[in-house]
């Protein structure tokens, strides 16, 4: 069993990339990551591609083999990994296992999604495939609508006001300003958020992650490979990696205000990395909708149940707060190219741990956590990274 290190990272900007295809995006991110590692393409022994909707939106499956050829390295091990919006995190977990097991020394993991090839209503159809097609999508639920129920349940149970929760979007945008990869690098006010159109009551447009395209990639390597990497002061280890699932459908659960898979996955990851929530210096949560950001912070152990929204108003999520969170813009402002998001989150944590976060830098960040969620919590992946040098 080997320790697993992040040898290199790369990502495209998240945007409506009219001029770049799905394969263009994943090649771009991959080359950046390989270059960042100081390796050559021929060093890659296995590829894991995380993606949710390429079949439905592009009519394209078999992305692993496709990317191997387009990177000029056909012959390597490759496959696509899918877990709805947690496809990126799930792909990283697979890559982690590949290196940890000792079978592979150098693995490329790429998350990619291209939602803008479709019109909004088709993209909406694609996203609801994360949930029960036969009994939930059939009744006309959209993905937003399911999250709206969670929002209602949370506000009711914990007597939280929507304004408090919606501030999460304001927070994300503030930090996206200094992130060259972000889809929306401009600040917004709470008033703008609360005046934006209602998408599914009570969720407002500016509380929802946007549709966009992007690809992010990591090169993970074993101890054996370290000596071949580019010289760097900093070395980041992927110290914890876990996946958990939850009762699939929201209406089959007993409490909509918590996501059991987050609790389970984070406990596993903490144990693996040998850390506790208080040791974590920087956090990326999967805030596809503002209320989820709040719930995730609670489930991951950073706040008591029902008190997550207070962290916002107390400024604890700021880069100099107790729980610096989504310090590169999060899903709302950096973007949420569904299958790629999990890898973008790790890209952001690595930037922080390397001290390369610029104006968003959390001083002395040593341990970071990235949480990626599929569906309304049907799958959660948690990754913990640690600066070891």
């Amino acid at each position, binding site marked *: 069993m080997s320790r697993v290190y992040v040898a290199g990272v790369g990502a495209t900007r998240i945007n409506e990339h009219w001029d770049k295809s799905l394969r263009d995006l994943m090649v771009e991110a991959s080359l950046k990551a390989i270059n960042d590692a100081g390796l050559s393409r021929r060093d890659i022994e296995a590829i894991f591609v995380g993606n949710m909707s390429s079949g*439905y939106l592009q009519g394209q499956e078999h992305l692993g083999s496709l990317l191997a050829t387009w990177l000029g390295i056909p012959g390597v091990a490759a496959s696509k990994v899918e877990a709805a919006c947690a496809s990126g995190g799930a792909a990283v977990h697979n890559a982690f296992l590949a290196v940890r097991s000792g079978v592979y020394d150098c693995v490329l993991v790429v998350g990619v999604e291209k939602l803008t090839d479709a*019109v*909004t*209503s*088709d993209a*909406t*159809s694609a996203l*609801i495939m994360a949930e029960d*097609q*036969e*009994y*939930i*999508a*059939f*009744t*006309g*639920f*959209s993905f*937003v*609508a399911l999250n*709206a*129920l969670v929002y*209602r*349940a949370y506000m*009711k149970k914990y007597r939280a006001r929507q304004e408090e929760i919606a501030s999460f979007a304001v927070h994300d945008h503030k930090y996206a300003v200094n992130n060259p990869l972000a889809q929306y690098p401009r600040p917004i006010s709470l008033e703008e958020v609360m005046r934006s*159109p*209602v*998408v*599914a*009551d*009570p*969720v407002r447009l500016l509380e929802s992650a946007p549709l966009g395209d992007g690809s992010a990639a990591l090169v993970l390597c074993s101890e054996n490979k370290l000596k071949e990497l580019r010289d760097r002061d900093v070395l980041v280890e992927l110290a914890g990696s876990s996946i958990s699932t939850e*009762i*699939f*459908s*929201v*209406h*089959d659960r007993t409490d*909509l205000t918590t996501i059991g898979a987050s609790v389970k996955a984070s406990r596993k990851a903490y144990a693996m990395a040998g850390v506790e929530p208080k040791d974590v210096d920087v956090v990326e949560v999967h805030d596809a909708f503002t209320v989820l950001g709040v719930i995730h912070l609670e489930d991951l152990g950073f706040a008591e149940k029902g008190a997550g929204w207070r962290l916002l108003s107390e400024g604890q999520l700021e880069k100099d707060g107790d729980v610096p969170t989504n310090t590169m813009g999060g899903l709302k402002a950096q973007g949420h190219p569904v299958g790629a998001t999990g890898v973008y989150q790790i890209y952001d944590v690595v930037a922080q741990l390397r001290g390369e976060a610029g104006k968003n830098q959390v001083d002395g960040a040593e341990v970071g956590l990235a949480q990626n969620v599929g569906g309304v919590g049907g799958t959660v992946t948690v990754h913990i990274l640690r600066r070891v040098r």
Partner: protein
Amino acid sequence: MSYLRSVPRVWRERRVKYQLIGGRCKDCGRGFYPYRQICPACGSANVEQVKLPERGVVELFTVVRTPPAEFAQYAPYVVAIVRLEDGTLVPAQLTDVELDEVYEGMEVEAVFRKYREQGPSGIIEYGIKFRPAR
């Protein structure tokens, strides 16, 4: 979108959808919809099919304003989780009601309605919606 054109899929699920057939776990007592062989709460395979009650209350609801493509012509509409008289939770659309008349706790009853069509030439998919109870 071939899954939307699939006739066998609709045919297979019709009885469960038309008659609201759920499952009741004989070990832990949980009721759930739709019927499946393994209880989602306790994992027991000791599950019996039950025809669920037709009355309940709105547990949670929202209004879909940006619908998936196959429902585009019907928006805006209300979707909800309904708690039936026996405690089983069921996802469904509400009908015969104005958007601003719906509230949590509203009593509702099951009705048999069209959910969607597989295009103008395709088959019609029917199911159970809920309307304000008499």
